[in-house]
């Protein structure tokens, strides 16, 4: 599938989800409502762990920086703070001593 065909597919499923909710009158069964509640949690967690260590053999530094970023996200609930803490710690740890 080419890039633009993929984008067209993403457009269709995204608009479809948004439109379906506004147009539908019936609610999904409780089990599937709970399923939808857990989707971002499961998908976000699944996106984190395989990409955490990275290709460059700096896995331990990245793991330490990610743990501090998670703490920052927990305390501040701000995306930019978590990014700043994570990248800042990572860059500090990489400085050769």
């Amino acid at each position: 599938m080419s890039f633009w065909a993929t984008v067209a597919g993403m457009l269709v499923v995204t608009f479809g989800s948004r439109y379906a909710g506004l147009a539908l009158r019936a609610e999904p069964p409780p089990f599937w409502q709970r399923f939808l509640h857990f989707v971002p949690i499961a998908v976000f967690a699944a996106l984190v762990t395989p990409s955490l260590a990275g290709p460059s053999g700096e896995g331990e530094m990245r793991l330490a920086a990610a743990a501090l970023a998670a703490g920052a996200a927990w305390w501040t609930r701000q995306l930019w703070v978590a990014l700043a803490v994570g990248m800042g710690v990572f860059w500090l740890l990489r400085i050769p001593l």
Partner: protein
Amino acid sequence: MAPLWLGVVPFGVAYAVLARDAGLSLLETQALSVLVFAGSAQLSAVGLFGAGAAGLEIVLTTLLLNVRHVLYGMALGRTVRLTSRQRPVAAYFLTDEAFGVAAASQRRTFAFLLGTELSLFATWNLATLGGGLLGAATPSPAELGLDFVFPLAFIALLVPLVRTRVELAVALASGVVAYVLARSLPGGLPILLTGVGGSLLGAWLTRTTPAPPAIDPASAIREVA
């Protein structure tokens, strides 16, 4: 409400920098923000593009991430009166943040909803443009380790969502399973399988909960995507 718009900016910049890092052109990076306009789905898509995932896997991951909008739409459709012409317009620009603002506001009109949606659309697209240009000006993203922004951004999206023991269990189980699956399965398959499996686990673990968790506007705002 200003923090809401400010919160979109670093997310949009991070998305665009990662998109350029994954090999997307400036036009392709911007096109996703105009045509798809869904932060977490765009971010996961560029990660999957970079990993060489199949187009179908990317589309299915997008569906999985965005199907929660069905719930927002239903909640909005009950409170804001929309004509059949207004509905597709309101739907195209609907995001978590717009839902959160509209659901928390007393002004439940199409004009107020669309104004909120369009201001977020404009902010997201300007942040994308800024990040795309920044990505082009960065000499060696690989040397700087900019790919690390990808897991960091999803950590920042994930952490505020985890408030109960079951949510923590689902997050930990999904993280471990995806890590193991990614060692043997290619592209986007580990994300898709884990996303469906983890959500089924969560729905099953909460089966004794009498009522499904109500859609809380404040939590929708926190979900930031």
